[in-house]
């Protein structure tokens, strides 16, 4: 009887460990399945034209997504120019001055912003910017992406600056350096690698966002002609092509997906080698 119970416990133990190993294996398997598929489909559709040509009219073969690739970079540049100063300075506030009611509130607000569905950001920017400006524009798209990046940058900056030991600040202050210079020239540079990690991951996330661009950047078949005008973006173009009925466009959507994934994964992997940063991958 006792023997049987022991055996049963043994079997259960073995069984569970098998199951657990299997689930880990499947998880990695899914990743390779998806990446592998995109890689195979994408590579066969990629060619030089893809990077240099504008899209062709509906139903005509050929053409590329050059404008969408450039458009994505411009949107990210706009998003950065807005979210970097905002995010970093707010992060500095949280880490250096934020141990009070306001700090807790802002921290909480930033956390909540991280969880805000990106489509909601799209609605909000449409009513805030697109309607008053009387037009879809690159600026609206850039700000929408920026809002998605801000909380990640803020919280990373805070975490990274908090890690810098108090003694470093004290040493600087003891030398008679003013507080603001201490923060900007001593603490911030020390925390910079970690902050850059956060920024790059925020960019990686924003680069793949489609939903907030639907009603802000709108899309453009040509090269952009100004920041107050609609602009093309890679994820948007992939979406449009993916739901189309044309084989040729499907192929281009796969190629676009491959380029986007290389961009995004490249940023993430680069970051991974830079630090042991985790979590920033996620919203």
């Amino acid at each position, binding site marked *: 009887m006792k023997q049987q119970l022991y055996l049963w416990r043994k079997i259960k133990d073995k069984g569970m460990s098998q199951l657990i190993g299997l689930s880990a294996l499947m998880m990695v398997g899914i990743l390779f399945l998806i990446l592998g598929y995109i890689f195979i489909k994408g590579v066969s559709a990629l060619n030089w034209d893809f990077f240099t040509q504008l899209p062709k009219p509906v139903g005509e073969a050929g053409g590329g997504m050059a404008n969408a690739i450039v458009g994505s*970079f411009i949107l990210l*540049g706009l998003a950065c120019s807005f979210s970097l100063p905002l995010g970093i300075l707010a992060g500095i506030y949280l880490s250096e001055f934020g141990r009070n009611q306001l700090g807790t509130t802002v921290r909480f607000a930033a956390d909540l912003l991280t969880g805000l569905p990106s489509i909601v950001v799209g609605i909000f920017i449409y009513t805030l910017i697109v309607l008053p400006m009387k037009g879809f524009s690159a600026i609206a798209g850039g700000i929408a992406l920026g809002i998605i990046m801000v909380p990640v940058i803020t919280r990373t900056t805070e975490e990274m600056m908090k890690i810098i030991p108090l003694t470093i600040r004290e040493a600087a202050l003891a030398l008679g350096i003013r507080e603001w210079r201490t923060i900007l020239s001593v603490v911030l540079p020390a925390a910079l*690698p970690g902050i850059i990690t956060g920024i790059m991951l925020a960019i990686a996330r924003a680069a793949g966002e489609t939903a907030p661009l639907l009603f802000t950047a709108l899309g453009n078949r040509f090269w952009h002609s*100004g920041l107050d005008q609609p602009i093309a973006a890679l994820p948007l173009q992939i979406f449009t092509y993916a*739901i*189309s009925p044309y084989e040729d466009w499907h192929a281009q959507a796969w190629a676009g997906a491959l380029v986007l994934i290389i961009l995004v994964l490249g940023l993430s992997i*680069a970051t991974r080698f830079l630090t042991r940063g985790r979590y920033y991958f996620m919203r």
Partner: protein
Amino acid sequence: MFRKLTLILLLLFLLALIGCGKPATRPILINGAGATFPYPLYSKWFDEYAKIRPEIRFNYQSIGSGAGIRQIIERTVDFGATDAPMTDEQLQRAKAEILHIPTVLGAVVVTYNIPELTKPLQLTPETLSAIFLGHLTRWNDSRLVKTNPGVALPDKEITIVRRSDGSGTTFVFTDYLSSISSEWQTKVGKGTAVNWPSGIGAKGNEGVAGQVKQIPYSIGYVELAYAIQSKLGYAAIQNKDGKFVLPTLESITEAAAATAATIPPDLRTSIINPPGEKAYPIAAYTYILVYKEQDDPMKGKAIAEFLWWAFHRGEKYAADLLYAPLPQNVVKLTEAKIKAISYQGKPLL
């Protein structure tokens, strides 16, 4: 290490900035949005026009007729496009007068994906409405067999694909279904977006054609050019005179000709289910919507010139994609409309 990264980030940023400031002689960009119905033609037109007038760019985003109407009312675009004429209520919501400029005629076709089928399906108004109302659910239903003698219809469930976004194609199609089926009229009605009794929703004409292509034994409705370009089959529909008619250039032209004499002065009209042996029953004008009084003389002039070009030079591209030209008297009326586009009261053309 991080210094390099900072540098890279900085470079990316600069690149973006350079990109922003690049074009010194910046082309006039004219933004339009709306119907997916004429998108294959419009994208061709804009592409050709850019070759003749490289300083003017027409950026057209096909996000649905509903969106075309909404965005022109909100003035977020320079022109809208729709296949469903704006309602009086919508026209009132726009603060200024909006012109309806018909560009071409198109047909809404009932497209399907039945791999076994070698010749076009024949549908009567009754079977068509029964399918979309969800009363007729299998391809080998006796009602379908009766109108398709000698065709082996498969014993499969019918999957319906319809639009999920506001659409002029939907308007035209539901307009037709309402006119032939009282049950449809009372239960569903007509509009750019309706409360569908059944079916998979897909975004845009592209989306519907895409889903039909993906799912065997499905049925959907799209503009003719989409069915042809994506190599899908489409049905011959029984018209008012009881003949089964395939959508062709001739049958669409015929449909317009039958009703051309009675077109109202603002050109908002429906040519659903016209009389005539050869007329295809589900055809429609597709419109470009512009404000009569333009804010920006440069843009207004560019739009008027383009429309003029589209009328007189663009039509050959239309025929390639099976969009039919407007009847002669409608052309006259439309030319007058284009000439009415003005800036501070002065015509731009």
